[in-house]
């Protein structure tokens, strides 16, 4: 397994740095380009949520990103020291009702769940952790 770590201040102008880092790790794990894009998007959503909800805004704390690359598997881990924020309790938007009642919140978490094979939220008193896993399903076991 190859593990790489990046520490960035929680700011939206660092998003491309984050997604480029994840894309490189996804390719190192041998994922196809569609899966690489899924990993980039999911990482974007997780990172953005940490800024907005754990830190309550930009420039309020650092975010550590760790990518663990194994053949056909990428594990993405975000850690922050913001307030405990349990994204796992957020429901997907209800698309069955009238448009006017559609809540736009929850789209990011919903997308993460759609894009990745595993999404785990570990809120904590001193540190929050979000773990995302993507597997290459085209590989013969």
């Amino acid at each position: 397994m190859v593990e790489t770590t990046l520490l960035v201040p929680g700011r939206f102008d660092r998003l491309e740095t984050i997604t480029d880092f994840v894309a490189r790790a996804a390719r190192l794990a041998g994922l196809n380009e569609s899966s690489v894009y899924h990993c980039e998007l999911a990482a974007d959503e997780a990172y953005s949520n940490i800024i907005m909800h754990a830190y309550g805004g930009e420039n309020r704390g650092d975010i550590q990103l760790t990518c663990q690359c194994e053949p056909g598997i990428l594990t993405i881990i975000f850690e922050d020291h913001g307030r405990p924020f349990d994204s796992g309790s957020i429901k997907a938007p209800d698309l069955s009702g009238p448009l006017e009642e559609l809540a736009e919140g929850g789209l990011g978490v919903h997308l993460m769940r759609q894009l990745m094979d595993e999404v785990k939220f570990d809120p904590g008193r001193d540190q929050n952790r979000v773990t995302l896993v993507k597997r290459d399903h085209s590989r013969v076991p």
Partner: protein
Amino acid sequence: MEISVQDYKRVSVIKVTGRVDSATAPDLEAALKKQLEGDKAHIVMDLSEVEYMSSAGLRAMVSTLKAARRVSGDVRIAAASPRVEEVLHLAGLSSIFTMYGTREEAIASF
């Protein structure tokens, strides 16, 4: 991200190019809001050259769609790139937006 606006008689076409994420989505939302404030509630979004769109971009589009429909307008999507189509589908929003293969078809639909 770049945004260009072309006003026709009945419709405004907003072409978005590049990357729409939490850093750039506020600019997109502001441009869409400006159209609505100018009483231009018939909007075509040309997304043919959007290489990347996160939920931030989707939220901007949904909130604009709601606001446009309140005043009997609409936001219709033209030529969404494969990546945009995919993220709209994964988010469950492809049933909420009317989508057209070309800019011309979307304009003519109004």
